[in-house]
């Protein structure tokens, strides 16, 4: 029996365990997962919804503990791995317990980066009172507890995570200011024009953004807590949430001598420099890329599960990245090389309506969509995302990617404008021409027209339209005295 040990029970770690069991129906693998967090696996990305007060921590559980029992998987919560002995093939936990493995999967994720700013940490190196990072259930609970009595919050970092935290706190009635080091928000994902539109959108939602806002101190004066900015300004800050980026958690790998660059270096099978050690999720670096999203982490998990069970598809070629901001009333999607401005090789299509908070940009190369930003009104986001994912040809009419087509649903108000051959009654396949002919032949009411043509006798949805045509015919022919309608018999074939 092959013993697989997974370190980290986060999004990637919990996934790979489920993926392994789904493929290993004979239970040929002996699986053990070790997680530092005491909370059973949960959907980390929904912490934003927890912070926004939409769901509770209890709602976001992924794999209940009972599942591990039913599936014969050893689950060790609250166990932090301190060391790997690759020669003996054991991992050693901080409490001294050891776990032998044949195959080891590292899924340690990343940890929040805390800028060195006086007042953010206490002398022991722990986060100071009022200061939180935003990564785990524990962090989230800490922020929520702090926000209960807070009037002002500062969020350090205007990336995806920071903006979701800010939006959530604003929704809780806290006045929020986002401090962002760079010249525009989410500079990794969007361009400065989009950043500008985003600032206005957030302002409407009660989130104030300070660009180039660099905190230099978190301080107290009496009951007041405040942040001091590099430019000397003081901002009230009952609580501070740090969302200033993450560092892949690579200590274990580095200490045990695995190849580590920005993160743990893996090949196309997600294998590290040791053939019995694999790395997935945010702690892995594949072809120079470290991913910070769930979709690639889950792809990694599937690749490793395939590799360890001998299933096909055990090769990874990298992931296309689509980033979606999950903040109520801010609809933002970005993908690919959205920063690009016009150059010789690329075509950029753009629509900007800052007042309504809409910004749309497409980057097209060789007829393929290679990047996009969609902010605000976003009816085409699904089509754009799928085009980007599939690498299909971009429609010759680019506008269709920016604005939804109206399809064939056009309501015609004026009967005069309906083409003669247009179908008026779909249920009985009656054209406008058939109705006008019928009118000319003496059918002067809707009922009479219906008697001859059967228009209106199906779902009845065209009754107003037929009435309109009958009236229009009468109006167009005001002098005509309606003949005594010829006996209208049902046309029965």
């Amino acid at each position, binding site marked *: 029996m092959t013993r697989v040990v997974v370190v980290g029970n986060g999004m990637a770690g919990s996934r790979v365990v489920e993926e392994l069991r789904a493929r290993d129906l004979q239970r040929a693998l002996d699986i053990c997962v070790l997680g530092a967090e005491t909370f059973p696996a949960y959907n980390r990305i929904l912490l934003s919804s927890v912070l926004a007060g939409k769901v509770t921590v209890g709602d976001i559980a992924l794999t209940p503990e009972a599942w591990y029992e039913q599936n014969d998987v050893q689950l060790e919560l609250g166990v932090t791995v301190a060391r790997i002995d690759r020669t003996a093939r054991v991992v050693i936990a901080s409490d001294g317990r050891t776990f032998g493995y044949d195959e080891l999967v590292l899924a340690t994720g990343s940890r929040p980066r805390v800028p060195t700013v006086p007042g953010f940490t206490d002398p022991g190196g722990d986060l100071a009172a009022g200061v939180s990072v935003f990564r785990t259930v524990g962090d989230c609970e800490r922020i929520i507890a702090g926000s209960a009595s807070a009037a002002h919050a500062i969020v350090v970092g205007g990336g995806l995570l920071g903006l979701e935290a800010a939006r959530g706190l604003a929704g809780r009635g806290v006045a929020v200011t986002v401090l962002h080091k760079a010249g525009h928000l989410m500079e990794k994902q969007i361009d400065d024009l989009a950043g500008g539109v985003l600032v206005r959108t957030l302002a409407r939602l009660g989130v104030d953004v300070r660009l180039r806002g660099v905190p230099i101190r978190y301080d107290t004066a009496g009951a007041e807590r405040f942040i001091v900015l590099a430019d000397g300004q003081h901002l009230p800050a009952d609580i501070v949430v740090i969302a200033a980026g993450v560092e892949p958690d690579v200590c274990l790998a580095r200490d045990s001598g695995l190849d580590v660059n920005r993160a743990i270096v893996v090949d196309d099978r997600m294998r590290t420099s040791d053939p019995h050690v694999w790395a997935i999720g945010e702690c892995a670096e594949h072809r120079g890329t470290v991913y910070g999203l769930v*979709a690639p982490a889950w792809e990694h998990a599937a690749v490793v599960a395939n590799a360890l069970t001998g299933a096909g598809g055990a090769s990874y070629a990298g992931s296309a990245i689509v980033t*979606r901001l999950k903040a109520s009333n801010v609809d933002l999607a970005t993908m690919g090389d959205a920063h690009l401005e016009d150059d010789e090789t690329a075509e950029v299509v753009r629509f900007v309506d800052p007042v309504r908070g809409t910004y749309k940009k497409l980057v097209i190369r060789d007829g393929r969509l290679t990047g996009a930003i969609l902010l605000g009104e976003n009816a085409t986001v699904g089509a754009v995302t799928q085009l980007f*994912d599939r690498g299909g040809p971009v429609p*010759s009419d680019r506008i269709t990617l920016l604005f939804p087509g109206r*399809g064939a649903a056009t309501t015609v108000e004026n009967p005069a404008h309906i083409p003669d051959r247009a179908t008026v009654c779909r249920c009985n*396949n009656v054209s406008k021409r058939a109705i006008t002919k019928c009118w000319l032949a003496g059918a002067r009411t809707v009922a009479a027209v219906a008697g001859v043509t*059967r228009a209106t006798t199906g*779902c*009845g949805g065209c009754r107003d339209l037929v009435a309109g045509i009958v009236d229009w015919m009468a109006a167009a022919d005001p002098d005509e005295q309606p003949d005594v309608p010829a006996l209208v018999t049902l046309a029965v074939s």
Partner: protein
Amino acid sequence: MTATATHCPYCALQCGMTLERVDDRIAITPRDFPTNRGGLCQKGWTSADLLSSPERLTTPLMRQTRAAPLLPVTWDEALDRVAADVRRLQAESGPDSIAVFGGGGLTNEKSYALGKFARVALRTSKIDYNGRFCMSSAAAAGNKAFGVDRGLPFPVTDIGTAHAILLVGSNVAETMPPFVQHLADAQRSGGALIVADPRRTPTAQSAAVHLQLTPGTDLALALGLLHLAMTDGYVDKEYIADRTTGFDDVWRRAVTWWPERVERVTGVPVEQMREAVRLLGSAERAMILTARGAEQQSKGTDTVSGFINLALALGLPGRPGSGYGCLTGQGNGQGGREHGQKADQLPGYRKIDDPAAREHVAGVWGIDASELPGAGVSAYELLDSLGTVDGPRALLVFGSNVVVSAPNARRVDERLAALDLLVVADLVLSETAARADVVLPVAQWAEEDGTMTNLEGRVLRRNKAFEPPPGVRTDLEVLSGLADRFGCGEKFPADPAAVFAELRRASAGGIADYAGVTWERAASTGGVFWPCPDESHPGTPRLFRESFPTPDGRARFVEVEHRPVAEDIDQDYPLYLTTGRVLAHYQSGAQTRRVRALVDASPEPFVEAHPELALRYGLHEGDAVRVTSRRGTAEGVLRVTETIRTDTLFMPFHWSGAGRANSVTSDALDPTSKMPEFKICAVRLEAVPAEAVQHDVAVS
């Protein structure tokens, strides 16, 4: 001549109509029946045309050898041949060497008699029917969740009182036009219609929200809507606690389907999903209705479970003016699946592997339970096995045109050709009948009495208005005549009232209990909703008010996970094909392609494509195009329309020959319902070279 009140022969709405002979014509007048309220679509208005069609068969046909032509014979010659061949094949290869294939258009009596005929006269387990291609996924999911499968657990008129309606994969404006009145009722009083469909169909065009999803991603959509219902606070926790079980396991799946993830899979913008959930969740009365679009998938059962889960999470089933329902398609799609045409079923929606059910039914049939065969195989599996080493050597078909309506039709052609004996009972020489060794001409709807159970579970009477033409027999007479030859004719009366009386006894105590529905009550205005256990029982228009027919009385959430389609698009086959119906035609078109007005309205097979796609392929409206999958090709005229996704083609499946869409479709089956994946396969599109353009003659 007096007028006869009856119902339309086509879809499950069973519109009320009156038939009357006026001079030498037959006049049709719509009736004010609850489902159609005086409305009829073009199919209904012209339904009498086929009664006097010169294409009707009026004499049995038979061929001596496969190569020989079909020639007229007497009934005795035809039935003797069938009986002799059946006996010979069974002697050589055992009872299961004979298979029976039924249809969802057959009356309750015929469905019942056919199931009984297979088990009692032929002793074969090999019976299934085309309803497998229609409602089987919804049926399976309904049973799992509610312990019962009745398409609509409420009268159709309740739909008009809903404040929000989600229609998934249903184009009622074309497939069931008079039904739209009920949607319109709801809309007139401020109700919102939400439609999920890869095409902006006429139905979708009338909706407040159209979720234009990627084909085959309905289940992801269902999970995403459930996720949003939870995060946006619309989940009815009290209802979940009081009336259901299993929510936690279902939520555990849905928690991984956050809307942004679902958007990427389905192509439906998050904001639209959110709006749909808001409309459903904030409505006092809301309904979720699924149809073939969601169901005809290799994960159709799970997809329906996904939408039932959503309905349960919102607390809809059993609440007035609210709930989940399936829009049954075929005329007797409901009754046809209740009385034993299905491989694993006995009358009354009983399971054939349930010893108590076997005892009961065997008792009614006057045989020993041990003589009853066990469960057979599903429709496509059955067709796929014909003429194979262990497969059936003969097939008897009633009320189905499998050559046109089954998936991967070229395979079906091949299997039918490998049979020793193919017997087809039909009104016209359908494509399947044309391949038969023996063709039996049977009566039409207006020429015989019977009961039908419509999409609401309403048992109603179809009344005989005219005598069938000379030489034509009813299906019940055919079965009776065959049974005679197997020495059990007395068990197979040809009188529908007698068969129905027996059906009532056989169904008594079952889930679909008809015991209290008398022949006369079925004819009364409005019919009777099952279950109706005794004659004093009023019937059950609305199910689930107090409890669900499960062992603990609670509805069950069913844990489901999204999975990809069986055949996704790739470099070689870069487009999805989805299939469906048009207004003027019904199913395989055997009937409607023989009605002049309907052929004029919809003369030929076509392929719908988005203008962008047409441009990319250099194709124009009206071009002859060919759609090719790994299994076959189908040709049609190109219709360019903005109402379809740019990655998807649509073809109606009503035609045969070069225009047969089912030559292309996939035979991947749902593991539970065995529903084929009619709604999605990967294809490529090209122009038909000019010299190869065939003009498919719609009227033969």
